[in-house]
């Protein structure tokens, strides 16, 4: 005697229902993705990061040559050539630490206003710590629209070394 598969039907149907629910969640995710990263946002603009330098937070100046590695107790800042961008474009720049948390920024503001300043984007030591976190720090120069970042115009990274 061969029993029918009726006893498994409810399991099979539950599995299909879960699969459908999973698909719905993933489609919702895709909708969110397209909402916040709509197609056609690229303008072809590109900003120029001149370099990353050792930074004196008291004097608010940079010193020495551009570098890609820093001791963790050495503050640093990037110099961005804002003047190379159209003056009316709203832009900003943000450092992200090795945990991908924001670690210092300038803007958003029209490029002309930022170009009138020193062009520096200093990073900030995370609150409660004595030095920067070791690892890779990434600077993103971003274009803004309606108050939200919509395009990456430049990117650079430096390494904060392990050490005391």
């Amino acid at each position: 005697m061969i029993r029918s598969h009726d006893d498994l039907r409810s399991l099979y149907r539950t599995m299909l229902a879960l699969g459908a629910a999973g698909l719905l969640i993933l489609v919702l995710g895709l909708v969110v993705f397209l909402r916040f990263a709509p197609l056609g946002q690229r303008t072809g603009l590109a900003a120029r990061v001149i370099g990353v330098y050792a930074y004196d937070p008291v004097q608010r100046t940079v010193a020495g040559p551009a570098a890609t590695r820093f001791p963790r107790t050495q503050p640093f800042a990037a110099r961005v050539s804002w003047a190379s961008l159209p003056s009316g474009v709203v832009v900003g720049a943000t450092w992200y630490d090795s945990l991908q948390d924001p670690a210092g920024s300038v803007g958003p503001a029209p490029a002309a206003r930022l170009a009138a300043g020193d062009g520096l984007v200093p990073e900030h030591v995370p609150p409660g710590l004595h030095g920067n976190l070791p690892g890779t720090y990434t600077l993103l120069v971003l274009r803004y629209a309606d108050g939200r970042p919509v395009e990456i115009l430049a990117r650079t990274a430096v390494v904060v070394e392990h050490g005391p």
Partner: protein
Amino acid sequence: MIEQAAYKRRWRPSRYWLAALIGGALFAVLVASSALSIALDSIPHRASLFGLPAIGLVVMATVFGLRAFRDREPAVRGRDLMVAGVLFGLGICSWLLVLDVFTFTQAAGPGVAAVSALACLPTTGFGLLVVRRLDRNEKEPWRLVLVAAAWGAIVATSLVIWAEALWDEGLGTRLVPGPALDVSSAFSAGIFEELAKGVAVVLLYLTMRDEFDDVVDGIVYGAAVGFGFNFMESITYMTHLYALYQPEGTSLALAAAAGQWYQRQVLGLFLGHATYTALVGAGVGVARQLRGLHQRLLAIASGFLVAIAAHFAWDAWAQFFPVSPASPLAVAEVHLRILVMVGPFTTVLLLLLGMGLHVEGTALARQLELEAEAGRGAVLPSEVAVLTSPWRRLGARLAAMARGGPVAYVRLARLQTAQIHLAMERWHRERQETDAPPAAEEALRRRVLELRAATASG
């Protein structure tokens, strides 16, 4: 015993070829990943030294493999091939372990990595123990449960490193920080990690059909893979955060690592990777007992879809709404968000497990009754009620121990296990979902009778 009886060479169906194809493709990906690790200098050259045992195992596997092809005697050839396969698998796992250890833990050093691993072992072991015990009728063999966990810890983590890095390079670096990047990262983790873990369950389904009976077994193997993955991932995060905060002081570094341990090995032990991959296992387990190919594929696809969605939902949520350490409700938030986001998926999984246990229990009770009615001596009418209840089985074993000591306990346990194996075999045969030769059932029956004789003589 089942293995010997069920799958003689001439009965091996095409699923072994499918498994070999999947295994070959994975091996190629792992070789490419391994070569890339060394080419990009992310693995120090001293790793080669630690990898020597792995090379030795692969050499030994080659020797046995060649010997198998030379040998004309099928029994000897089969044994050599088995040894070659096991040695080869051990060699690959050893090498991947070396790569994993260097990739994930070198920043903090071997001491911190070892302490992190020791901290995660008891919790992971506890998880495996609990999940294995949930399969109350026919527990899966430890060797397969541990192989599943090892796959999750070693193979799956190796598979996802480059997949996620390539996704990040191709898409992540083009997205501005914010919801789109968060969703992209969550998609990457959900898709690649669940595929890398789930393929272990699929391979077990294809190659170990005798030990993969139904949805309950699928959930057990899937969860085991998840525990293994969670084990390695916990060590990775613990060592990473320790290395980041160590320059600020050992106490801060320890607190950061301990926080990760608590989140991943306590809060997220069951509500995390174990749940996700168990959902894949549930889909594969349901497919195990379906006849139509399209139904089987739909069930497996559904398992993967819900697992990927569950993983995606958690990752996206955690990134959209991070818990601020400064918040006075931070501790409550950390607990609540995992309950709210993963809890429903775990609840659904427990529902599937309950349904599976009900179907399995009903089927086994019926088969045990039929076997007892047949009067062949393998199952006696008086034993049916005991065999269908885990508690009564335990009670009978304890009573046996009281009469005849631990040896009597072990003998009765073996007898009960063999009787349930027989009932399970009858169930699969009745449903025409086994490709074992009919002699397999008779061999199991003989085995039960031998064990009964041994129990009686003791």
